[in-house]
């Protein structure tokens, strides 16, 4: 039906509905660059093998009577390699909003910066600060648009708005959850244990900061993919503030556990107490010598031997390392071993602890 003029407003037919369809323009994401593919899985087969995603983290955030505490670690690991110990996993979206980073670092930092831009546009349009719910909804709509395309992020958008302190968990699957306590990342289960047990809404500021810190330490202690420095932020009605940055290794309780003892049955440990330095020698040298994978099984059994035995081991290594064809290379290995042994033997015990890489 084609009614003209004023009467067309009364036309509820399908034809007019379709006409109107074209004119309605809902706001689309401004940087919508996702390719329109029926199945993105087929676009780059095997891409995961080539691009090593930097995963593994522990982040947490919780609400209490004085605001929001956000605590994160700072390790980036790709596989078994620690890429960095100084990653900033809290992204400052605006002076009242913080976003945490877990999963793909690029995905998190890019989209949270984009979110910062959208929040600023909201302020300019609406003349008021954006609420945490709205900001998290913008981000979750973006991630939902890219659902299935391989984004990897698990972030918590935390802030203080007119309704008080708020935390929203936003996922790369488009999930968005409101809550008062979240922990995200590979070490989150470890952090949850400490966090759930010690959490009370009516904590003081000091208690809350200490709880956040302790939870991340617990996670860095148990999770291989979490570590570095523990950063704690606090959000109150005046915005966010960084409270502390503490090294996660230093705060671990001092124990008599020497690195070389790992994997040894308990009845053998008493030999090691007589020569902890030598046991450390073995484990310190082996990781430094990647070519000698053969030596690993031998050296692990020699934790409790004297320096003379270690020299004998070096000879064994040379004979067994048939893959290493070069004569001089074998000699160099021997020299390296010897020098390392000598050097480590002259160090004091506390320096050993610092020098030994986290095994």
């Amino acid at each position, binding site marked *: 039906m084609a009614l003209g003029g004023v009467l067309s407003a009364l036309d509820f037919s399908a034809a007019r509905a*379709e006409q109107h369809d074209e004119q309605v323009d*809902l706001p689309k994401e401004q940087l919508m660059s996702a390719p329109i593919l029926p199945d993105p899985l087929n676009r780059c087969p095997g891409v995961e093998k080539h691009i090593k995603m930097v995963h593994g983290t522990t982040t947490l955030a919780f609400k209490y009577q004085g605001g929001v505490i956000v605590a994160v670690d700072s390790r980036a690991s790709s596989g078994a390699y620690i890429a960095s110990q100084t990653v900033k996993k809290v992204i400052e979206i605006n002076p009242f909003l913080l976003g945490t980073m877990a999963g793909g670092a690029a995905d998190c930092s890019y989209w949270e910066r984009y979110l910062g831009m959208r929040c600023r546009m909201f302020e300019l349009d609406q003349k008021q600060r954006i609420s945490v719910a709205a900001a998290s909804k913008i981000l979750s709509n973006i991630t939902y*648009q890219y*659902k299935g395309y391989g984004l990897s992020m698990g972030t918590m958008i935390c802030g203080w708005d007119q309704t008080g302190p708020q935390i929203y968990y936003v996922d790369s699957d488009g999930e968005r959850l409101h*809550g008062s306590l979240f922990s995200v990342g590979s070490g989150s289960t470890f952090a949850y244990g400490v966090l759930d047990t010690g959490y009370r809404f009516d904590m003081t500021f000091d208690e809350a900061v200490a709880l956040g810190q302790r939870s991340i330490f617990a996670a860095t202690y148990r999770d291989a993919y979490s570590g570095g420095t523990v950063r704690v932020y606090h959000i109150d009605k005046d915005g966010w503030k960084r409270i502390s940055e503490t090294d996660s290794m230093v705060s671990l309780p001092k124990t008599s556990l020497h690195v070389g003892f790992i994997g040894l049955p308990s009845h053998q440990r008493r030999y090691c107490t007589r020569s902890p330095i030598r046991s450390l020698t073995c484990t310190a040298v082996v990781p430094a010598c990647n070519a000698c994978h053969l030596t690993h099984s031998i050296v692990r059994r020699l934790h409790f031997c004297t320096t003379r035995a270690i020299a004998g081991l070096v000879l064994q290594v040379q004979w067994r390392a048939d893959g290493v064809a070069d004569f001089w290379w074998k000699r160099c290995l021997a020299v390296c071993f010897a020098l390392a042994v000598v050097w480590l033997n002259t160090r004091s015990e506390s320096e050993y602890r610092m020098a030994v890489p986290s095994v």
Partner: protein
Amino acid sequence: RSWFTLVSAPLNETAPATRRRSEWGAMAGMDCLIGFVGKDFAIVAADMNAARSIMVYSQDEDKILKLDSHKLLAVGGDAADCIQEPDFFKKNMDLYAMRNGVPLSTHAAANYMRGEKSYNLRRRMSQVDMLLAGYDKDVGPSLYVMMLPLHEDVSFSLRLSLLRAIYFALNGTILSPGLRYFIDYLASMQKLDKASHGYGGFFVNSLLDTHWKPDLTEAEALTLLESCFKEIQKRFMISMPNFTIKIVDANGVRTVPRASS
């Protein structure tokens, strides 16, 4: 597609048709939804767990959405789809009500949603199970269930999918006037007296079959629901301490507070 779907941006048209196994966040079936019809009300209950693999994110997640003054939609399945899809339906239904002055009836809403789910069926992956409970002045209370099968249940043999495509197309065009109560066996919609979704549903279906009768009063309905919850808490592997209960009747939608934890 429904002629009155007036919101032009379709629900994430660029979304892929399949999903990697690792991207299936919540396992399907973990959301327990129960609904049935009483004397002059329809009641719906859902658990409050929001979980993913071994971890429970929160235990106070409200899974029953108020679609309009006299409709409730309980949703389960993929967490993101459960927010975005019903939101899209709600916006369209609100727009219809604004333009036409009357809201959709429960029957119309159920059919509209089933049509949209069919449209999305082979275009994108969407995993949402729904229970729609509504009250209309002329019909009274009614309950509709809508579900999609799991992605892995749908076989991909070429001949079979060709047959399905023909069946689907014919049903949409030539044969639809003749098929009064058409149910696409892949995107199904059914009007029922009692229904449940999820693994928890396995345990309560027999309870509902045994103890449900027409013209239940509200007190009887709540007793029946409590016995369903107890059964789930006793026999289902996943711990579900909290449940949401909502009722829709002539006065509208209201939440029923639960006395026990």
